[in-house]
C-alpha cells in the first residue's frame, strides 16, 4: 500500500470519527486491477476501502451537486483538475465553500482504465497516461483545505505548454468541407447518452434543455443533425468555463474528440479576450461571464 493511500485512510477515519464531515468521497478498487471508481464512505470503519493509484481517474467535484442541502460537510479528495472543478462550481454559485472539506492530492497524472483492458497487472507500467493528463498544467490542486503530498519533479506537466492546442491546429489545417465532414462523422456516431454532460462540472444547470425534449428546441431523434446540435450547444454553454479536466472525452463511448471542440473555443477566447484558464482562480471571471464598460463592443 502506498503512503498516500495510508494518509487518505487515516485522515478519512479521523474526520469521520470526530464528526467533522458527514461522509467522504474518494476512490476504491473495482473488480479489475485497473479500475478505481468513486466511493462514498460514511463510517470510520470503512475508511480502509479508500485507495490512491494511477487509475483514480474520476473527477469527484460533480458529486457535490447531489447533496447541496446537506446539514454538515462533505469530505472530498481532489486532484489538480478536480480542484478546478470545485472552483467551477463555486464561481457558478452552485455550492458553498463551507459545505465541504477538501483533501488535495498533487497528481502525477492518471491512467484511463479502457487503455489497460486486456493487459495483465505485470504490464501495469505499459499503460499510457490518460490523454487528458498529457496537457495538464495544474497537477497541484488550486484549492484545498489540506494537502496530502508535496509537489516535486514527478508532477511536472508531461507536455510542453505549446502543445495544448495541437489537435485544434490539425483541424484548423483542414478545408471547411473536410472539417464539416469530420465533425458530421463524429456526431453521426453520438448516441446521446449524455455521459459527457453528466460528468462535466461546468454542466451544472438545474435542468438541462436536453432533458426537456418536448420543448421543441431539439429533437430526440438520434440523427447527425440533432446530435451535432446537442454537441455544439454544450460546447457553447461551457465556453469560457471549461476547466479542461477532459472527463467528457474520456467517458464518451463513441470516441468523439469533444475536447478538441472545447479547446478550439478556449483558443479563440484567449485570442479575443486574453489568456484565461477557467477554474484556476475564483477572482478571474470567465471571459463570457463578465461585463465591462471598457469592452470594445460597449457603446
Amino acid at each position, binding site marked *: 500500500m502506498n503512503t498516500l493511500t495510508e494518509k487518505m485512510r487515516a485522515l478519512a477515519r479521523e474526520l469521520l470519527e470526530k464528526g467533522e464531515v458527514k461522509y467522504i468521497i474518494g476512490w476504491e478498487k473495482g473488480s479489475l486491477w485497473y479500475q478505481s*471508481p468513486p466511493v462514498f464512505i460514511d463510517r470510520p470503519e470503512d475508511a480502509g476501502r479508500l485507495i490512491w493509484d494511477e487509475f483514480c481517474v474520476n473527477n469527484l467535484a460533480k458529486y457535490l451537486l447531489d447533496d447541496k442541502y446537506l446539514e454538515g460537510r462533505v469530505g472530498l479528495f481532489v486532484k489538480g483538475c478536480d480542484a478546478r472543478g470545485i472552483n467551477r462550481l463555486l464561481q457558478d454559485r452552485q455550492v458553498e465553500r463551507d459545505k465541504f472539506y477538501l483533501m488535495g492530492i498533487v497528481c502525477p497524472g492518471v491512467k484511463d482504465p*479502457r487503455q489497460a483492458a486486456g493487459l495483465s497487472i505485470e504490464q501495469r507500467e505499459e499503460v499510457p497516461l490518460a490523454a487528458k493528463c498529457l496537457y495538464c498544467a495544474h497537477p497541484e490542486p488550486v484549492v484545498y483545505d489540506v494537502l496530502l503530498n508535496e509537489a516535486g519533479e514527478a508532477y511536472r506537466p508531461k507536455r510542453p505548454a505549446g502543445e495544448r492546442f495541437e489537435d485544434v491546429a490539425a483541424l484548423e489545417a483542414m478545408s471547411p468541407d473536410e472539417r464539416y465532414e469530420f465533425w458530421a462523422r463524429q456526431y453521426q456516431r453520438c448516441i446521446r*447518452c449524455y455521459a459527457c454532460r453528466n460528468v462535466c462540472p461546468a454542466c451544472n444547470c438545474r435542468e438541462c434543455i436536453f432533458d426537456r425534449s418536448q420543448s421543441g428546441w431539439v429533437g430526440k*431523434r438520434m440523427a447527425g443533425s440533432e446530435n451535432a446540435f446537442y454537441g455544439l450547444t454544450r460546447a457553447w454553454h461551457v465556453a469560457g468555463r471549461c476547466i479542461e479536466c477532459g472527463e467528457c472525452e474520456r467517458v464518451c463511448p463513441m470516441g468523439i474528440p469533444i475536447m478538441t471542440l472545447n479547446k478550439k473555443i478556449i483558443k479563440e477566447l484567449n485570442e479575443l479576450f486574453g489568456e484565461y484558464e477557467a477554474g484556476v482562480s475564483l477572482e478571474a471571471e470567465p471571459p463570457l461571464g463578465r461585463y465591462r464598460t471598457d469592452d470594445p463592443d460597449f457603446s
Partner: protein
Amino acid sequence: MLKIAKEKMPELLNAWAKIGKLYVPQDQDGVSNFLPWDGKGKLTLGQGNSVLPPKDLFFPRTETMYRYQRSGGALSLEEVVENEKQILVGIRSCDARSIALLDDVFLTKGYVDEFYRRRRENTLIVALACNVAQDTCFCTSFGIDPGRAEGVDIQVWEVDGSYILEAGTEKGRELLGQAPALLMEAGEGGLPEAPACNLKVDLAGVTEKLQQMFEHPFWAQICRKCLGCGLCTYLCPTCHCFDIQSENRGDSGIKFRCWDSCMFSEYTRMAGGHNPRPSKKERVRNRFLHKLQYFPERYGKFGCVGCGRCLSYCPVNMDITRIIGGIKEVDLNG
C-alpha cells in the same frame, strides 16, 4: 463444415453484401462497431465486443413509423415499411443470446412489434466464436457458450489463420451456398476450445431475494456514484426502451420512435410534472430490478448476458457483477 482463409474473408463479405446490406464490426476513428460493409472498411472481427451491441439492426436508434400530411381539410398517412435484407456478421454468443431476449420482448406475450419483426425476419445472423475472454466477460455465468452461439444461421470459428463455418439453419446453408468458389470443405473436428471467463457471478436465488428488496436501503447506497447518464442502457444489448415522438414541419411530419433510457429523469415524468422515479435511487433500482427480477419473472431468463460493455464503459464503473454480489450479501432481517 466449410473453411476460408482469414485473408479471404473480405471477399466472402463482398459476395454476401450483394445479397443484403451486410454489417460487420469495423473500426471507425478508433471505435469498433457494426457498420455497413463497403469492401474498404477496417475489419475488427476477432477482437473484443463492438462498443454498441447489434440491437441497432433490429431496433434502430431512430426509426420512422409513419409520415403524415395535411392538405386542406384532409389528413393522409403513409406507412413506412422496411423490407431490406440484412446480414449481420461477427456477433458473439452473448449478443446472440441478447437477440433471443429481444425476441421475447418484441414478439411474444400477445403482441408482435411489426417493426422489429420485419427487420428480424429479414436478417441473417453469422456468429463468430470467442477464442479469448475479455477481462469484463462473464457470459458463462448465464449459461452462454462463448464457443457456440444460440439461434444463429451460421457459426464461425477462427482456427489457425482460417475461419471454419457451419450452417445452423436452412437460410444459413443457402447463404453458404452463395459463394462456392471461396469456401472449401473443412472436414470435421478441430474446433478450438471455448475460453473460460475470469469474471463470474453467482445468480442462485438473486431474483427471489430481489422480490423482497424493493424498499431496502441497499439502493440508496449503490446509486450514489451513478451519474445518471444513459450510457449503460444504450450500450446494453438487452435494454430496449423507446420513446415515440413526432417531428412536425408545417403541414407534414413524421412519427418516429427512438431509444430511450430509464436512467433519464424525463423517462418517467408524467403530464403535470409528477415523477414516480424522482431520483437516481429509483432509476438505478429499476434498471437492476428489470435485468434481474422483472425479466426472469416475465420470461424465465435473466435480462443480462454478461457481455461486459457496462463494466468497460460506465464512467464510474457501476459494476453489475459487484451489485449482484452485493444483493447476495444483503441481510433481509438486518
